[in-house]
């Protein structure tokens, strides 16, 4: 009886989590380069009924078992590209295809981002909105225009029309980008699951686009459907809990 209660309770917790993740996806609908997440569930261990003292037909060919509810098995990140939006701003960059910009954190470690909404600091370095330096060639302090080619070569153009090459932007690539750790603020860190980054030029499958940003890859209709599924499953399992409550009440009323 009490296990039935914990079955229902495990499902309420799981569905609550699904609603939380869905809400987070919807909340980040307008976050640059946000990658949506989805929750995967699994069934739990199966217990033999006979061992629990229930009356079970002894001749059963396979042991009669009952499940013990559900739990989250994974929160998966969908790494597909978001919608690219042309902003016309000179220091907005988007990565089309795999690859991450490299960002220097204040503690000296490296973080990775796809949100290329950069600005220039006093020394001519590009920085993220938080003020962390991006691993890119230093830009001259003068009023020059900047261009970045699709394969990552940065040039400055003087008002006179002279083109000054500044260097090459290298991107970080991962064997398993789904294993990156989210640091918040659109930043990711490498983890044992993601593997070490490979620092390479934008390759045949990757291009850098200037004057554009990558939007979130959240599909509102999918999220609303998930919201409905989560909410209905929640109610369904709440009803299972209620039924068990009534059964226990019935058992309590055997002798009044």
């Amino acid at each position, binding site marked *: 009886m009490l296990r039935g209660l914990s079955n229902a309770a495990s499902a309420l917790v799981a569905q609550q989590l699904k609603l939380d993740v869905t809400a987070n996806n919807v909340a980040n609908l307008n976050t640059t380069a946000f990658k949506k997440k989805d929750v995967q569930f*699994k069934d739990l261990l199966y217990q033999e009924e006979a061992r629990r003292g229930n009356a079970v037909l002894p001749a059963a060919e*396979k042991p009669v078992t009952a499940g013990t509810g559900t739990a989250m098995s994974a929160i998966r990140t969908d790494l597909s590209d978001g919608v690219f939006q042309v902003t016309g701003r000179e220091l907005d960059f988007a990565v089309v295809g795999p690859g991450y910009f490299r960002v220097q954190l204040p503690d000296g470690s490296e973080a990775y981002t796809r949100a290329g909404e950069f600005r220039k600091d006093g020394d001519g370095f590009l920085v993220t909105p938080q003020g962390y330096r991006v691993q890119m060639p230093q830009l001259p302090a003068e009023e020059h225009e900047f261009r970045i080619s699709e394969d990552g070569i940065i040039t400055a153009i003087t008002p006179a029309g002279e083109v000054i090459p500044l260097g090459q932007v290298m991107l970080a690539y991962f064997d398993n980008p789904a294993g990156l750790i989210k640091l918040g603020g659109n930043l990711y860190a490498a983890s044992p699951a993601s593997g070490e980054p490979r620092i390479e030029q934008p390759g045949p499958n990757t291009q850098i686009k200037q004057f554009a940003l990558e939007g979130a890859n959240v599909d509102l209709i999918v999220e609303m459907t998930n919201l409905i599924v989560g909410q209905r499953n929640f109610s369904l399992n709440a009803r299972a809990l209620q039924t068990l409550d009534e059964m226990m009440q019935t058992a309590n009323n055997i002798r009044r």
Partner: protein
Amino acid sequence: MIRGLYTAASGMMAQVVRQETIGNNLANSDTVGFKQDLTILQTGRENDVVRIPQERLQRQEIIGSMDLGVLVSLQHTSFAQGPLQETGQALDLAITGNGFFTVETPEGMRYTRNGAFNLDAERFLVTAEGDRVLGVLGPVQLPEGEVQIAPEGQILVNGQLIDTLRLVEFADPGQLQKTGSGYWSTEQAELDFNGQVQQGYLEGANVQPAEEMARMVAVLRLYETNQRVLQAHDQLTGKIVNEIGI
């Protein structure tokens, strides 16, 4: 008299087992590759009913038989197809028709219908539990590139055949034992796979919420009915003790 008391109690206990199964089905109605269970009950052991002998040494006369309550006879798993959900992810696979993916776990070979696979740090194809998915040549390791999976399980990366998924069927899937995390184990011989693998889809649970709700209502009411029977026996016993004896 007491016999009836235990018959009613066994009825109540059997409904609890049913409710636990329904609860587990509902809890997993959003679990990829989950197959619903159905608790099958059957009548308890048959006992001869004997006429009480009128005289000593008279042979006992059997006047019929009676079942003693109810027993849980088996947990039947329905392997009906679950609904396919499109995800568009290259490593999300669903099986239409019969059959299972094979997975290497620390406890040995396991079978699953949950094709929500990922890559680990060494680019091996793994389940959400981190267990490696098996191909015909062993654990599947994918080089970088565009992954295509054919309906018969061939894995192509950038058009190159890497391996074929190890897909199996069983003569009697009803005998497969659930071990949790969407896995099954069995000693049965593996048969050739006749289903199809759909890339970019996941198979949802085949739980029918309306069916389970109807069962849940029935369980609750049968539980109450058995409780009433138990109460009636209690009241009868009470009358014997308090009224007849006086």
